[in-house]
């Protein structure tokens, strides 16, 4: 179990941006990969083969915003899922829930510079607005 603990602590660090408590908690793409890569290469002490599923509860970790405890399900050496058993009790927790605005789907046309949308195949591209924009030159 001792070997699994660093994995759990790293997982907590990786999950913190999910709640968006404070900008300082944000892990940029430069620092997070190192943390994220560690679990995959650290074998879980309690798994013996690729098919073994092990559920491990982490220790309570104090963060700037309150204590955190996670439960990690290992599938062999891999982390199959991470579940939050205890989330920080912090006033910003409610504010961190993003406000989503619901609207009605509308079809519209407009003067635009470019189009975002899945245009992977050339068939799709040909019928897309982007094709028209490129043809317009």
């Amino acid at each position, binding site marked *: 179990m001792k070997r699994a603990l660093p994995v759990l602590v790293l*997982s907590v660090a*990786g*999950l913190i*941006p*999910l*709640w*968006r408590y404070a*900008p300082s908690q*944000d892990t940029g*793409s430069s620092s*997070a*990969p*190192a943390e*994220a*890569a560690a*679990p*995959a290469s650290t074998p879980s002490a309690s798994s013996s083969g690729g098919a073994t599923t092990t559920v491990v509860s982490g220790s309570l970790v104090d963060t700037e915003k309150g204590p955190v405890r996670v439960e990690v399900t290992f599938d062999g050496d891999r*982390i*199959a*899922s*991470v*579940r939050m058993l205890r989330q920080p009790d912090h006033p910003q927790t409610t504010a*961190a*829930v*993003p*406000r*989503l*605005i*619901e*609207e*009605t*789907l*509308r*079809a*519209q*046309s*407009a*003067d*635009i*510079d*470019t*189009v*975002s*949308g*899945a*245009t*992977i*195949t*050339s068939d*799709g*591209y040909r*019928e*897309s*607005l*982007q094709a028209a*924009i*490129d043809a317009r*030159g």
Partner: protein
Amino acid sequence: MRGLRRVEHVMGFPVSVRIDDEDVPEAAVDGLFAWLREVDARFSPFRPDSEVSRLDRGEVSEPGPELREVLDLCEEYRIATQGAFDVRLPGRGLDPCAVVKGWSVQRGAELLSAAGARRFCLNAGGDVIASGGPWRVGVRHPEHADRLCTVLDVTDRAVATSARYERGDHILDGRTGRPATGLLSVTVVAPTLTEADTVATAAFALGREGVGWAAARERCEVFAVDADRRVLRSAGFPAAGAEGVAAA
């Protein structure tokens, strides 16, 4: 016509570039497409001799630094989505395409910037890097290829859309191994295309819960159409004003 424009088909999708600056050499655009062709050769899982294919077959023990960067990003998002986004699904080969696309096009944009381009728009298979601005970026309507469902005003940001309409159920929910069907389309605006593209794909894999997940990420704004044709957008989504937008 001032500036430069070019469209080429590379990495399996059309890439169009529009540079409005007058003094950017044509060689900068050549360099962009050369880089994207190099990425295709090295990182495509569909090419048996690519770095990705050789790593997947175990012929290479350690990925090179650039592939390492891509795989680290893949792992970061796999953990952040609790496995919904996964480039190593059981019974399938390693497929980091979802990260490679945004990452490589972002690098390509940096090549243009280094060559002096300031105001340019790069569209790679529907994923957009808007440098300078403001640029008006339409989001394709998920049900009508010739219509938009929203228009954004963006400056120095990237816009990526993941959707079912083009290639069908091609994004799998790694938690179930089955196609993700909760959303018709999800668009993410972020500072870089590396982030916008990966967050959009991961949110699509998560389904409806992916909308809130993406919106909760720092610097990310989201616009999604779910399977019930409901539109959900984050409060800060940079939708353009009503002027110039005609209901059709």
